[in-house]
């Protein structure tokens, strides 16, 4: 029996991240000041980001793929984790859940996302997804003394388990048909044996779409999102509206573009109505929301609909614009949540949209920042949100889906109503309740990063767009 240790150099970022999560878990026992754990986590993630540079390659017999595509997504996850930790520090102290496990669970969830982005095999993909999801379920219920948080965790868990069942059923059909779980081997088997018109294969594609649809919160699999986003701790809402969604898109892109490339016509036909429905549900239901976290949950559903356009184009240009969009979404969404988190103070929830009335008079800076993020989420220049939508629409038009872009633009226009309502409340109404902002250095720092990113990408988009295009090359 001879055993050769596989080449571990492509997975150095994952290994470092795992070590970091375990170290944070252990140090938690020794120190009383949990803020130090946040610092260690952020510094560690920064180191992991550096190790990402020299980590391209394939290992464990194609089960782990580190390429430009996965590295770009990992960059989104790192930005997500750093920004989420920054806005968490003060918030979890206010919510009285300042425990060290919080940070290690965030890191474990990120490891799951990284494994998903790099998965070259359906089994690994499933395990990464479970690692990410399980950590997020726990984080959603982290405020144990709050019934809403319990409810969020339970709903997320039940529906997540349900979607996992769909994923596993889909994987088992693919395995039964092709005898392999390796994405590239599946693709070559399908084209060799001419399985492209097989009904069973189509069924498995549908099951995988359902499972990934749950993760990216696409309608009609979005039912969990509003309740979970509302009930979960706000910092975790920010975290999971970006991370798991991006990870879902990463696997959606890789599985469909690599394994099911020969049944492109079928899955594009499934994704088009899904995308339209997602944009419709997200944007229209958001109009009637009065809780800002719930409103942003529907907004997050709508953004999944726009990003789906990038996959529908089914070419590298579309994927690059989808990646670009998710990166921009990370900045603008966490930025908006950072403002929401500042409104939460001792004995004041601050999650109703009426709490924003007259904010420009009492707290002009917070109002101005919220204005920028709301503009960006709507997609108004010169903010990053405009660039994201612009590139995704251009790639869809180039692929011949002009009518779909028209639909998306109409829904974008509808979305302006509920985003601008917040702006209108802040600037044109008189303050009714006294809002005290719970500012802290880390939250300010997160706000500076997100604001600068949203504005700089909005004015000079070429760097990010070039990065996404370079990342997709050779995919």
């Amino acid at each position, binding site marked *: *029996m001879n*055993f050769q240790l*596989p080449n571990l150099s492509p997975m150095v970022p994952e290994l470092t991240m*795992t070590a970091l999560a375990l170290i944070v*878990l252990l140090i938690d026992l020794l120190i009383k000041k949990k803020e130090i754990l946040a610092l260690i986590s952020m510094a560690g993630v920064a180191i992991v980001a550096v190790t990402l540079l020299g980590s391209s390659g394939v290992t*464990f*017999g194609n*089960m*782990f793929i580190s390429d430009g595509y996965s590295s770009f997504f990992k960059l989104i996850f790192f930005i997500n984790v750093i920004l989420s930790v920054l806005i968490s520090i003060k918030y979890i102290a206010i919510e*009285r859940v300042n*425990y060290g*496990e919080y940070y*290690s*669970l965030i890191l*474990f969830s990120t*490891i799951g996302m990284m*494994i998903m982005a790099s998965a070259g*095999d359906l*089994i*690994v993909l499933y*395990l*990464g997804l*479970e*690692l990410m999801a*399980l*950590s997020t*379920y*726990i984080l959603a*219920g*982290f405020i*144990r*003394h709050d019934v809403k948080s319990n409810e969020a*965790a339970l709903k997320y868990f039940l529906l997540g388990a349900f979607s996992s069942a769909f994923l596993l059923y889909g994987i088992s*059909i693919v*395995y*039964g*048909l*092709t*005898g*392999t779980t390796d994405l590239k081997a599946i693709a070559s*088997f399908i084209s060799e*044996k001419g*399985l492209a018109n*097989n*009904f*069973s294969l*189509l*069924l498995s594609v549908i099951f995988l779409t359902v499972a990934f649809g749950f993760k990216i919160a696409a309608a009609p699999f979005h039912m969990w999102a509003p309740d979970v986003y509302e009930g979960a701790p706000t910092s975790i809402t920010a975290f999971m509206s970006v991370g798991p969604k991006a990870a879902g898109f990463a696997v959606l892109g890789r599985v469909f573009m690599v394994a099911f490339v020969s049944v492109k016509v079928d899955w594009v036909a499934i994704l088009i109505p899904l995308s339209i429905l997602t944009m419709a549900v997200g944007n229209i239901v958001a109009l009637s929301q009065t809780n800002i976290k719930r409103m942003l949950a529907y907004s997050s559903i709508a953004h999944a609909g726009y990003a789906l356009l990038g996959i529908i184009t089914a070419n590298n240009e579309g994927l690059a614009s989808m990646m670009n969009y998710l990166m921009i979404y990370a900045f603008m969404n966490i930025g908006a949540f950072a403002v929401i988190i500042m409104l939460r103070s001792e004995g004041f929830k601050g999650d109703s949209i009426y709490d924003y009335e007259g904010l420009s008079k009492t707290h002009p800076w917070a109002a101005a920042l919220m204005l920028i993020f709301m503009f960006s989420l709507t997609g108004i220049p010169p903010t990053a949100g405009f660039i994201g939508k612009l590139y995704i629409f251009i790639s869809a038009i180039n692929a011949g889906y002009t009518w779909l872009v028209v639909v998306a633009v109409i829904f974008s226009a509808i979305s302006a109503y509920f985003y601008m309502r917040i702006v209108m409340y802040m600037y044109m109404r008189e303050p009714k309740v006294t809002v005290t902002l719970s500012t802290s250095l880390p939250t300010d720092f997160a706000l500076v990063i997100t604001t600068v990113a949203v504005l700089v990408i909005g004015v000079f988009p070429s760097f990010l767009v070039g990065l996404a295009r370079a990342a997709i090359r050779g995919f």
Partner: protein
Amino acid sequence: MIQQLFFAYFAFVIVVLSLLVITRKNPVHSVLWMLLLFFHIASLYLLLNAEFMAAIQVIVYAGGILVLFLFAVFILNIREELRINKFIGAWPTGLTFAVGLLVVIIMSIKSFIAAPPGIYSIDLIKQETHTKALGKLLYTEFLYPFEVTSLILLVAIIGAIVLAKRRLKS
């Protein structure tokens, strides 16, 4: 022939038992039917020449997880299942979807073409013994997913401690 007969028996009983598990009003009855269900699943593994899996199924599921279920039922002291209209009111819709899904899956069976079998034929496994073959695969070809599983279990432990053990601060 005998093998097919056995398979038909076990497959049929598994379906019946699964239905019993989800339809009993008394949770203790559900759990006990589930015990029987796990034994029948273990027998299916035996038919597949996977004696190690069968043993694990009995030890882990019947011996471990089921006892936990019983403890949970016991601690919560549920005599009869709660029926809240809000949650079960929409059962006709659910049933429609379930039946629809069943029809679609049955339709797809016709077009299902099984892939050529892999290298682990019954003879090879007999020669190598099932446990050895499984162990070898887990630590070589499937080492990476195996290690990821360990992380998932760790997260589950952390979750249980965070959500259950921590004293509430009000």
